[in-house]
């Protein structure tokens, strides 16, 4: 499976070449390019997977394309976000620079949002994705309180808990999560940690990937490359300038 948008574009090239040499199969057909489709199918199959994401913060340009594509893909209501790129201006030794930190649900291995759910509506799938059964959720928002990353919210349209699902519906169909596919800088890499040959496995194996709030022992499965430790926890800084909630009420 292509793990980033660039890999995906590269594999599109393979589709085109495959189509040219294997006419009359349509290039738009999933069958057209076994070489490209097979890895997607590998992630879509039931076999033991552990999905994860690696975010190279050095490649993120803060364009929020992921934020917007997630909103459209998942019908996220106004004023709510499943992912957002926190953006910081860091001034050090008289020099100013921008730091980007794409945030989303970390699909924690020891997710604090799961045990608190009084009706068992939040659970972890065998592939590691933490999801909410919206038909069972009573909207008590206990999970929203328990998530240490502010990754959850109550969806005002469904009145149930909402969060990133790693685009489970897309992954099942052999596609990448919308944020990965739309990432302009190629900063987001999605894949299967259970496969030692996957891009995420290779990046994590290098040993310099970090997670947010490691001291809490939640074992997040969103890893960051090049993360400044001062941004890994609750950021001590001047507060945000852009506050959609505040603006709505004033």
């Amino acid at each position, binding site marked *: 499976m292509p793990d980033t948008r660039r890999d995906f574009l590269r594999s599109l090239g393979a589709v085109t070449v495959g189509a040219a040499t294997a006419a009359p199969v349509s290039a738009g057909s999933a069958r057209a390019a076994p070489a490209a489709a097979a890895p997607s199918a590998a992630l879509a199959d039931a076999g033991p997977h552990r999905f994860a994401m690696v975010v190279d913060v050095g490649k993120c340009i*803060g364009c*929020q394309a992921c934020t917007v594509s997630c909103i459209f893909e998942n019908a996220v209501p106004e*004023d709510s*976000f499943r992912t*957002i*790129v*926190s*953006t*910081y*201006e*860091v*001034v050090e*030794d008289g020099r100013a620079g*921008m*730091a980007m930190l794409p*945030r989303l649900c970390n699909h924690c291995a020891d997710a*604090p949002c799961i*045990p*608190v*759910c*009084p*009706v*068992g509506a939040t659970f972890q799938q065998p592939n590691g994705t933490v999801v909410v059964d919206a038909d*069972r*959720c*009573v*909207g*008590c*928002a*206990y999970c*929203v*309180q*328990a*998530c*240490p*990353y*502010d990754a959850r*919210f*109550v969806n005002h349209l469904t*009145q*149930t808990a909402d969060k990133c699902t790693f685009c489970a519906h897309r992954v099942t169909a052999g596609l990448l999560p919308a944020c990965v596919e739309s990432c302009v800088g190629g900063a987001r890499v999605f894949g299967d940690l259970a496969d030692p040959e996957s891009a995420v496995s290779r990046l994590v194996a290098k040993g310099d990937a970090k997670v*947010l709030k490691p001291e*809490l022992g939640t074992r997040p499965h969103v890893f960051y490359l090049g993360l400044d430790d*001062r*941004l890994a*926890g*609750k*950021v*001590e*800084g*001047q*507060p*945000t*300038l*852009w*506050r959609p*909630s*505040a603006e709505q*009420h*004033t």
Partner: protein
Amino acid sequence: MSILEVVNVSRDVSWLPWAVQYFFLIGLSVACFVMSLGLAFDRGDRTFARRALVGALACGLVAPVALLADLHQPGRFWRFYATPNLHSWMAWGAFFIPAYVGGLLVYAWAVLRPDLAAAGAQSDHMLARLQRIVALGGRPVPRLATAAAVVTLIAAALILLYTGMETMVVRARPFWNTPFLPLQFAATAFTGAAGLVLLIGRLDGERNAAADTAAARWMAGALTITIALGLAWFALGALGLERTHAQALASVAGHRAWQVTALWAGAATVLPLLLVAWRPAGWTWLAALLGLHAAWMFRWTVFIGGQTVPKTGAGLYVYQLPLGHDGLLGIAGTLGLWLFCYLLITTVVPARPDRRSSLVSA
């Protein structure tokens, strides 16, 4: 080095003012029930205990409504019983609440039955007939009263335990993640309950110095414990003796709004304590309202204030009380429902029974 947060998410408060009302009312109910136990064991001032029981009933009936309203999917409450996740304190609460409210109703009926029968025998008005029906004969049932008192006391303790633990276990919020919190909830509940008993005394119009003195003693004790707990919490954080407490304090200490809140909280505990210690003329009204205010304000600060502290971002989230059902209207609605329950209870239950220990002597 300095960091300026240019873009970040702002999360809404998801435990609404309904939750504040629930924790406030259930705390008052439990503490009032404990204060009313003299009725079952024939101890202490009977008027004080009866007022406390009226308070326990009115608050105990309204609290679950507020809790239900805090759910974003109230129609699915049956899921708490159909698919409970017993790793969650909230799931246990769904069993403790009916146990407590049910026990409270049985206990109230057992201790008030003779009074109801006596009041019902005085005339043949509709109310008197209703009182006779509710009294079911009116024979004292001291064993039932004692048994119901013990069972309800256990359920009441479980309510205090679960409401405290439910909040305390949230490690994501250092402000909540402290073993002091269940104790602070309990202490402030007793402060508010003593205030409510004083208020009910003023509303029923009967002057009774002994009942007021009993309430003042409860309030003084509860406030002293509240102050001790608050100072201990502050010392742990300020002296850096414990990491979570230091984090909690650091997350709010630099903000003007929280500095004002700290002063407000100090005044809300010290002022009623001075009042109940000195008891100047007309102290009961003010002490009643200040006691209730202390209990409510503590919960507002913990729940609404606590949720304005971002878990990852800088500064504070902005919260403005909405005027609709998830804000001011909700608060007014619970108070209106409380008033309705209070009037209903005090209409059916005679305000001034003339026998001192009707439970055992009739």
